[in-house]
């Protein structure tokens, strides 16, 4: 539950970039920034998850605070004076984007290149990327024992894609460690806890126990981790294969909200289709049945729509039936 009912909440007055604003008590600085349409980059923040404030790209300068504070999780207090575009803020945002841009494949992160440009990030400053890790190397990294780099190339998280089931792939070269998937798999939604952050420092990674493959893990394929992943590190196989084949084209896609056809809970599904074929299913985060989260059936169980028996479709199953031609006798 985020902000309590605005009808009852006390209002708090604060200043953002010398503009005064009233927001309900319990709001975050980010919410106040957004109310003022202050363009604030976020990566690890999502409305339907508990803020972990790990990426630090949303930091702002709070008068009286020694360090910058994360807008996404810091609650407003009366009289706060906040700067969102000071030199310190700009440097920190620039560096966070640069750190990620130089160590992670951020090619599918929406808005990333615009924000890099905005803050003048230059990931090339750290040199050429080091060679990608072999499969399993990062999974086996031991806490407190890194292999010291000579600094001539920039360490990255690059490694081979993990494909171990038919529903989704995990490309941890694209993982910025925003914790969202762990939260969605855990207490914030699914409570299956199939994945957690393992290891430490730059070797920290999203992992199952002992890095076992998903089919051996607790994963129930709800796909809620994919739903919250901001970088494309977790991707539906349907999308991954189309991208691989060069046929994925978001300009040709349509989507609409409907209701899942399985059990009686009534989950809202956003069905994405391309060329009259379903290509993926998501759920809106602001929907109070699902809060954006689904189960395996709702998320993946749509193939049957596209695998119709041709004889039925022709109306020829048990003899020719085209309703327009059938004369049904009127009741006596």
């Amino acid at each position, binding site marked *: 539950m985020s902000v309590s009912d605005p009808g009852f909440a006390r209002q708090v007055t604060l200043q953002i970039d010398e503009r005064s604003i009233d927001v309900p008590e319990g709001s975050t600085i980010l919410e106040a920034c957004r109310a003022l349409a202050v363009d604030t980059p976020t990566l690890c923040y999502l409305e339907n998850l508990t803020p972990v404030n790990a990426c630090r790209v949303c930091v702002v300068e709070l008068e009286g605070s020694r360090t910058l504070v994360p807008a996404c999780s810091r609650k407003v207090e009366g009289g706060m004076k906040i700067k969102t575009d000071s030199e310190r803020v700009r440097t920190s945002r620039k560096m966070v984007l640069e750190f990620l841009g130089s160590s992670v494949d951020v090619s599918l992160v929406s808005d990333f290149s615009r924000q890099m440009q905005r803050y003048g990030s230059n990931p090339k400053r750290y040199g050429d990327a080091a060679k990608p890790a072999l499969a399993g190397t990062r999974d086996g990294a031991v806490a407190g024992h890194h292999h010291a780099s000579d600094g001539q190339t920039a360490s990255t998280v690059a490694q081979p894609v993990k494909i171990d089931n038919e529903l989704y792939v995990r490309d941890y070269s694209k993982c910025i460690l925003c914790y969202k998937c762990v939260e969605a798999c855990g207490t914030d939604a699914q409570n299956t806890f199939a994945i957690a952050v393992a290891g430490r420092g730059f070797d920290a990674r999203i992992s199952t126990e002992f890095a076992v493959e998903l089919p051996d893990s607790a994963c*129930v394929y709800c796909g809620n981790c994919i739903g919250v992943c901001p970088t494309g590190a977790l991707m539906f196989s349907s999308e991954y294969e189309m991208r691989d084949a060069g046929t994925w084209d978001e300009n040709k896609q349509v989507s609409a909200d409907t*209701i899942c056809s399985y059990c009686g809970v009534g989950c809202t599904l956003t069905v994405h289709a391309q060329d009259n074929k379903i290509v993926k299913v998501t759920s809106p985060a602001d929907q*109070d049945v699902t809060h954006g989260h689904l189960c395996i059936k709702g998320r993946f*169980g749509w193939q049957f729509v596209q695998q119709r028996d041709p004889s039925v479709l022709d109306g020829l199953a048990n003899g020719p039936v085209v309703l327009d031609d059938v004369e049904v006798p009127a009741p006596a």
Partner: protein
Amino acid sequence: MFGAGGGTNSYEEVEHTDLIVLWGSNARETHPIFFHHVLKGIHNGAKLYVIDPRRTASAQWADGWLGVNVGSDIALANAIAREILVDGLENRTFIDRATLNFEEYRKSVERYTLDYAQEITGVPAAAIRELAHAYARADRAMICWTLGITEHHNAVDSVVGIINLALLTGKVGRYGCGVNPLRGQNNVQGGGDMGAIPDRLAGFQSTADAAAREKFEKAWNCTISPERGKRLNEMFDAMEEGELTALYCIGENPVVSEADRHRAVRLLEGLEHMVVQDISLTQTARLASVVLPAAAGWVESDGTVTNSERRVQRVRKVIEPPGNARDDMWIVAQIAKRLGRDWGSPTAQDVWDEVRSLSPMHAGMSYERLEQLNGLRWPCPDENDPGALFLHGRLWADPVEGPKAPFHAVEYSAPLDAVDAQFPLLLTTGRRLDSYNSGVATGEYSSPLRRVEALEISPEEAARHGLSEGEIVAVSSRRGKVFVPVHIDRALREGLAFMTFHFDVPTNVLTLDTVDPKSGTAEFKATAIRIDKIGAGSLAAAGD
């Protein structure tokens, strides 16, 4: 419940209640997103009790799991009631003001002592007592159930037994308090809302109510029979008697889903004419005279459905149906036309507006509002009404508004398909997370969780029969025999077996089609079976 058929609460309330009882429901697997709300409740501090013969995924979350013997729920409910009364934990004020028949009920539960209940249910008396106290003492408590309650020969009595507990403790008609059936299929609730019940019209208006009939007759320009129509089981009985000879079957697969499959197939094959309207060539469609290819309603057509919290929700068309497949509504209108009634080409919204004009509980739900508000919960009588969060608040009005809620004394009776020396195990059925009903839809995607249909038994049972994981056995009931591999699962105990009906194995060859006279639901949850080890050679003959 007390009139209109629907859960009394909204999902939101389960997040803010103090105690949740899942009774005969493995919501973790069968209603996963509802269980997300349960989990929020748990994280907010609510206690969870699960009553289920199996220690299911849901039960593993529970503060207390009561592993009842199959079909002993009424004895448990009555024992909980007795325990509450013995310790004086009932809500006297509520009982006196808002209920009827209490005294009769009190007497009826007297013989259900903890010891007696332990004998029948198998659950230790202390666990029953614990739940009775926890339920009665909680400020807010909700009971939710699924087919574990309703697929029994005494289904309605079991539901009544649960409702009695809510009345006894005043846990209904308040925020976070109530009794809720979790609907197994996506629009079971909506079907009921629209009058797909033998004696109801849209909005649960009774066909026996002359005024209601007249309203519909006027709108539809026809005559409506005041007589109750047939339930599904009665239709099969009527087929048996030659009284019912033609069937129009829309989106239902009775060959797989009916109990006693041999009988169902025989009767369907004996029909003079059967029209099946479906998205795929189901086992039932294969027996049809005519198959009408239908659009997949949830994504190839527009309309509404109603979920388990009474929320009417919009279904939208995203893709065009393939080939000659058509929207169900169009097909029905075309058939009407051939039958001499020209309904024109109504849109989903046209039909909905007609519902609103005839069903007062839906009157306030315009398409525009459904769109804006992500759906609305009934009753919603006018366009300024926000819809109902929970039902029966009227029972707390002083004096009570409308009729009081009656207790109904109910008695335990054992499952009909009795266990004996020849059929010593009790088979219960259900669903798994990744699959759904007869598997028509879920059979088509590559679930990494899916394994072949199996007879699930306890490690003790496996040891007793000398069976190992995956070994194929013959499973027989008094009605038939199937061959399935064994899966060993410690969630079960000796004498208890479990199967689903998702896959190719015709599980319902085994089940008994005796139904609850009050609801027409078959006792899928209790079948006496026998397991026979088969030699390697006899496998080839396993083509029952």
